[in-house]
Every structure is written in C-alpha cells, then in structure tokens.
C-alpha cells in the first residue's frame, strides 16, 4: 500500500523503508515549508502595523479583514485537497499554492511602493496557503513508510516552525534597521517564497498511486470520508479537543493581564515589552520537540502521545489559573504550549493517514485540519465571550475540564474496545 516514489513502486517500497522518515520528499517538502514560512511569516508579522499605521485601516476594518483572511484559508484547504486527489497531482496542487502565495507578495511590493490595494493580495495569499496544506501532508505520508509517519511529520513541522520563527525576526530586523521599509520586507518575502517554490518544483515528485484518480464530486468525497468509520473517529477526536483549545494568543493575553492586575507598573511594562518573546518561546519549544515526539509517537503509539499532548494543554490552563506572574510560571506555560504542539500538530495527521485511503488522502488530511481549525475558532470565540461575561478563571476552568473529561472518555473507550487509533502500538 505504501508506494514510494519514482517509476518502480515495488522497488521504492524497499528504498523508502530504509530511508525512513528522512527521505528526499520529506526533506524537500520541509525545506519548501521552511522557506515559504519565512516568506509568509515575514509578511504576517508586519501586516497589522502595515495595514493600520501605513494604510490607515480602522480597527473594525482590520477585524473584518482578519475574519476573511482565516475563512479564505479554511475553504480553500478543502478545495485543494479534493483537487489533488482527483487529479492525482498533489505536487502540482501544492506548488500552485506556493506559487500563488509568492505572486501575491509581488503585489504587496506594489502596495508598498505604488499604493496598490493590499487586501486582495493578502486574501489571495491565504487562498494559496489553503490550497497547499492538504496535498503537502498527503505527500509526506505517501513518501514515507507507515512506521515512520510520526517522525516524518514531526521533522516537517520542525522545519516549518523554524521558518515561522525566523520570518518575523528577519522582518523586524529589517524594519529596525530602516523604519518604514515595508517594500524591502515584501521583496525579501518574494525571494524566500520563490526559493520554496523552486525547491518543491525541483526536488519533489508526485507519488505513484496504486489506485486510479477518484472522480467523485467534492460533496461525495467529503461524505465518503464520513462513512469511513476509522477516520470519522479521528475527525471527532480532533474536533472535540479543538473545542477546548483556546489558542496561544489568549494564553499570552492571560499572562499579560495577570501581570497588569498585579498593579505594579514595572510588571505591566515587562508584559508588553516581552509580548513578542512569548510567541518566540512557544515556537522554540515546538520546533525542538516536534521531531523527537513524532519519533516517540511512532514507537509507543500516536494516540498516546497525542493524548499526552492534550494533557500538556490542560496543564497550561492549570498554570494560567494559578496566576502566571513569575518568570518560572511563564516559562512553564511556553514550554508546555510548545510540547502540546510538538505532540499533536504532526502526530494527528500521522494518526489519520493510516485510516484514509491513499487516493483520498489529500482531501482527508485537508478536511481534518479544517475541522480542527474551525473547532479552535469557535473555541476562541466562546473563550472570549466567557472571559468577557464571567471571568477569565471560569473560561480557563471550562477549557481545562473539557480536556480532562475528553481524555477520560477517549481513554475509557480505547480501553473498552481495541481502539483503531492505536495504529502503531
């Protein structure tokens, strides 16, 4: 079932198992993501300031833009997955996504230099990002033997997160050296985007499918995913836990507010000044743990590692409830958040890939990330509402209890009947 690459599938199987997780396709896709993430995160980091300060967006317009931005991403993810499955060309689909995003940044250079409208380009950028996600994850699973999926996804996420960390650093470095030089930021972004595009075009090849391309319409393929019992279980799992995932920004905001309420003006200053460092701290913890935890997942069972990752998130909420004003507590929150992502972000697709038939994998993995993203979005909304109406501790307690209850239920179900989630144990 696990065909490798190239023209001789039966040969490639042997090769792939020897290469394990670190095969050419995974490395190339990882490097593509690395460069593209430098490119896109450079832009994402400066966009709030660029739109509001440079182009004079009102807060309301900016909020609307944010919503459209995320929606464009979520919708096109499904489309990208289905197209990749139907054409059996995940590489071209993904490459089109990377190329489209890069092209939009050429437009952004235009916005910075000649005040072209920036918003259409930014939305098209998200469309591109949506298109490539599903096919990319499918190719990782198709190029790697099943026992090494966790490691392969973990390795890819490490490169991905490294790029996402370097991008903002680079962008702020440029703006620090030459304030207002958004054109230079966007130009570098185009360069890195092109580099990512070139890597995928040059070193990634379409997997050879054992089954012919699917010709079912989009609604049918989503329905067929639903009829797939094993996958449905994972969709429910990802969605349910996503509902209790409040998102990093809220976690940082809790830290920020807690240090502000302590009423010492020195602390409130530290809170604001160190805010960007919170993002960086989590990213470092994530990229350091993604590969080893993926490997661990391959050894002891992906579902187990994934559950432990959720418990890390529960621990984050616990620390947040106990007022994270000390440096140690803040470090614990960042470390645990990073661990949570390391144990879940790559492990979930590795878990799901085993139960999605090869010819539906791009669409299936895209559906999974979309479900998780939608669940997280509604969770953020609910969390914000509860925080606003009742209080932050209640909101955190609800999320904490939600996770713990879900873990108990899932574990109980898994013990009661041989769970197919334990793919690799």
């Amino acid at each position: 079932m696990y065909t490798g690459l190239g023209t001789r599938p039966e040969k490639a199987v042997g090769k792939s198992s020897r290469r394990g997780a670190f095969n050419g396709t995974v490395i190339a896709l990882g490097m593509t993501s690395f460069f593209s993430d430098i490119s896109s995160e450079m832009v994402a980091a400066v966009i709030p300031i660029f739109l509001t300060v440079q182009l004079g967006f009102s807060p309301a317009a900016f909020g609307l833009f944010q919503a459209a931005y995320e929606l464009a991403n979520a919708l096109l993810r499904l489309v990208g997955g289905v197209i990749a499955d139907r054409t059996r060309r995940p590489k071209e689909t993904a490459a089109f996504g990377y190329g489209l995003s890069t092209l939009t940044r050429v437009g952004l250079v235009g916005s910075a230099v000649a005040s072209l409208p920036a918003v259409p380009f930014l939305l098209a950028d998200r469309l591109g990002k949506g298109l490539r996600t599903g096919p990319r994850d499918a190719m990782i699973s198709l190029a790697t033997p099943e026992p090494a999926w966790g490691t392969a996804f973990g390795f890819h996420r490490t490169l991905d997160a490294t790029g996402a960390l370097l991008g903002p650093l680079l962008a702020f470095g440029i703006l620090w050296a030459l304030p207002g030089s958004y054109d230079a930021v966007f130009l570098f972004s185009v360069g890195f985007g092109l580099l990512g595009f070139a890597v995928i075009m040059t070193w990634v090849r379409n997997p050879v499918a054992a089954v012919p391309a699917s010709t079912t319409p989009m609604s049918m393929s989503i329905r067929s995913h639903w009829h797939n019992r094993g996958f449905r279980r994972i969709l429910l799992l990802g969605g349910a836990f996503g509902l209790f995932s409040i998102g990093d920004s809220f976690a940082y905001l809790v830290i920020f507010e807690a240090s502000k309420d302590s009423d010492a003006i020195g602390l409130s200053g530290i809170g604001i000044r160190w805010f960007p460092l919170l993002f960086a701290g989590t990213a470092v913890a994530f990229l350091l743990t993604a590969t080893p935890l993926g490997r661990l997942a391959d050894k002891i069972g992906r579902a187990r590692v994934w559950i432990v990752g959720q418990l890390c998130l529960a621990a984050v909420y616990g620390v947040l409830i106990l007022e994270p004003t000390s440096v140690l507590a803040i470090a614990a929150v960042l470390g645990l958040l990073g661990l949570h992502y390391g144990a879940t972000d790559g492990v979930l697709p590795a878990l799901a890939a085993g139960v999605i038939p090869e010819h539906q994998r791009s669409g299936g993995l895209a559906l999974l990330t979309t479900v998780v993203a939608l669940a997280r979005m509604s969770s953020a909304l609910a969390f914000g509402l509860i925080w606003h109406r009742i209080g932050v501790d209640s909101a955190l307690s609800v999320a904490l209890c939600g996770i713990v209850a879900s873990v108990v239920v899932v574990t109980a179900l898994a013990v009661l009947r041989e769970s197919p989630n334990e793919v690799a144990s």
Partner: protein
Amino acid sequence: MTNPVDLPDDEPSIEIETAPEPDGEQTSPSTASFALLALALVVLAGGAAYFIGSIVSAKEETEAAQARAEEELELFDPRDFVNEFGTEPPSSLPLVDDSVPTEESSDAGDSTTSTTSSPRTAPRPDVDPAQIALAFVNRVPGDEYGLVGYIDPNGERHITELECSRLDLNEAGGICLSATAGLGGSGRGLLLDAGLNPSLRFGVNLPSRAAVSPDGSVVAWTGFSLGHSYLNPGEFATTTQLISVERSIGANLEQVFTTYRDDEVVTDVDSNFWGVTFVDGDHFYATLGTGDGTSIVEGRVSNSRMDVVVENATCPEVSPDGRTIVAKERRGDSMQLIAIDVETGVRRDLGETRSVEDQVEWADEDTVLYALPNLEDGTDAQPVFDVWALDVAPGSSPRMIIPFADSPAA
C-alpha cells in the same frame, strides 16, 4: 545534484547515500526548475542590494535634511519664545551669537548634586530647572533627532542626551515616553524630576500622549496597544494609565475608573481613553472614545470616577487657571482647535485653520503651543515638526515659535 537519467537497477544503495532527493525520473528536474532556483536567489540578492541601498540613501537624505535644518535654524531668532513667554525676564539679554556650543550639562548642574553614577539605563541630563524656559523634543533630522531639548532664559536652544518621543515637564517633575525600536508597538516611559533626570522606568505601549500634574504628584501616559479587545483580536486600541509618583502605583483608566454619562455607567466594550490633562493632583480631564464618537470626561483620582462633561470633542488641555479647555472637534477629515469655557460650556473656534493632530500645551494664561508637521524639511524616517503658538483670544492667528521641535512642555 539530480539524476537526469534513470539509475541502473543494481545501484540503488549508492543513490541513497549520495542523493538527498528522490530517485530519478525519465524527465529530469528540468533546467526550468533550476532557472527558478536561480531567479529566487537573484531576487534575494536584489532584495539585499535594495535594502542596503535604501539604508545608504536614507542616511544621505538625513544628512541633507540636517544641513537644511541647521541653515533654517540660523535664520530663526531663538529669543522670540523667551521674549514673549519667559517667566523670569531675560535679565541681561546677552548678545547671543552662533559660537555658543551646547555645554549645558557642565555649567547647569549646580543646583543638584551632580551624581553621574546612575546605571546606564537612561542618561541623566541634570539640567538646572531654572534654565528650562521650555522643553521640547528635538526634530532636527540627524543624530540628535528625538532627543529632549530646551530653551534657556536667554533664548538659547540646548539638546540633552535624553531620548523621548513625547514629553511633559513642569517645575515639579515630568514624564518622557519613547518607542522602543524593533518589535513593534511597545515603548518605555520614564518619570523625570524637574531637571530631566529619570527616577523610574516603566513599560508603555506605542507612545502617544503624556501629562504631569502641576504639583508633580501624578503623571499620565497614553499609548496605542494592539489586540486590546478580547472580542476582536488584532484591533488597535489605546491604553491610558495614571501613575502616582510617590507610591509608584499605576491605575489603568479603563479598568480602575468608572465612567458615568448622565449618572449612568458607561459600559461600552469599545471604550478607550486617551489624552489626560491635570487641573491638580486629583482633578483631571481626558478623552473618552466609544463607537459613537469622542467626548471629554472629567475625573477625580480620589473617587475613581469620571463623568462625561463635553460631547464631540477630543484631546482636552486645561488652562493653568482651570477656566478654559482647549480641545479639538472633528470637521470631516480635519481636527479644528476649539476653546471651551469650563463654567458655561460655550465653545468657539480658535484662529487655526489647519488640522491639528497634537494635544496642545498652555504656554501662559492665554496662549497655547502645539506641533504641526513640516512636510518640506523631513525625511521618511525622521519627519519634522514645528511648534506653533496661538493666542486663544478671538481673531488671533498662529505663529511659528520653535522650528524643528515637537511635544512642547512649558
């Protein structure tokens, strides 16, 4: 790095060792791919070249602007301000000529014990408060851009080493805000004594407004913050904090104070406060912004309460006698300076026709100062402002009083 031809069947292991990419195909990863790779590198190199070029040209532009500014400053009589507003009469108007260098730190440090042992967090200008007729933020492009300057009683312009983007100062103390470079949207604030020496450092958002009460017991700052509203992540909003100087305790206006409009609590989620002005250490005014518009609130620190007193106005600045507020009223895209009689609430336009972004500063009982952008002399990175003076009496017109300066503090 690639295998343009198919590998022989008996050599797979060699390929594994040497080639990181997947095994070959009949069609090679074509020259087009490599052209793409080359293009990417060319764009990156071009970006780097453009970036370095921009830095160089920005430097040249700054130098040119600096030279221009110095020329223009020569033409401007610095005694104008003191002749008009100097509290102590310029006892013996010396014949000021261009040969006077800025030696203020050595000759002015007589009133305070000149302690230069302070940690290198911020410079201690150690200026004799009697020497400061008016303090401002220097806007001459170049290295001294953004440093605090002051006009002495002789009308001489001095520049200190203290960096501020927004300043307020009086005989009792001061506050200085500056944006920290790099990771956007943050800044630092300093409490100052009357001689511009920092005594306490605190964090702020992107600096916007600063005020110190006449007795120096309370200061206020306003900064722009990102993602302040829980419901709309990513929004811009303002934060305003009052700081008790003695107790080093801050109070966020939005969180600690309760605001009333006609004795009903204002519970607008979008409410923001900015631009505080003090009558004394307890009594103050500020701007309240809601979804509907802006209004002026009157507050008391002692009872943590603010009341809406004026609608449709922003950025109040109360006169030293407490009788008049100069504020701004929106007229389309323009902000019109207005005077509001505190007792009667009667408002009238001042004689400034240009739109004013600044919150004004009172120079004496009947004149306000404010900065306006000077679009001709600045650069992108170092925009220039001039300080203008305007009599609040009807029929007056504005005069430029201190060129290349911002954030006047009298």
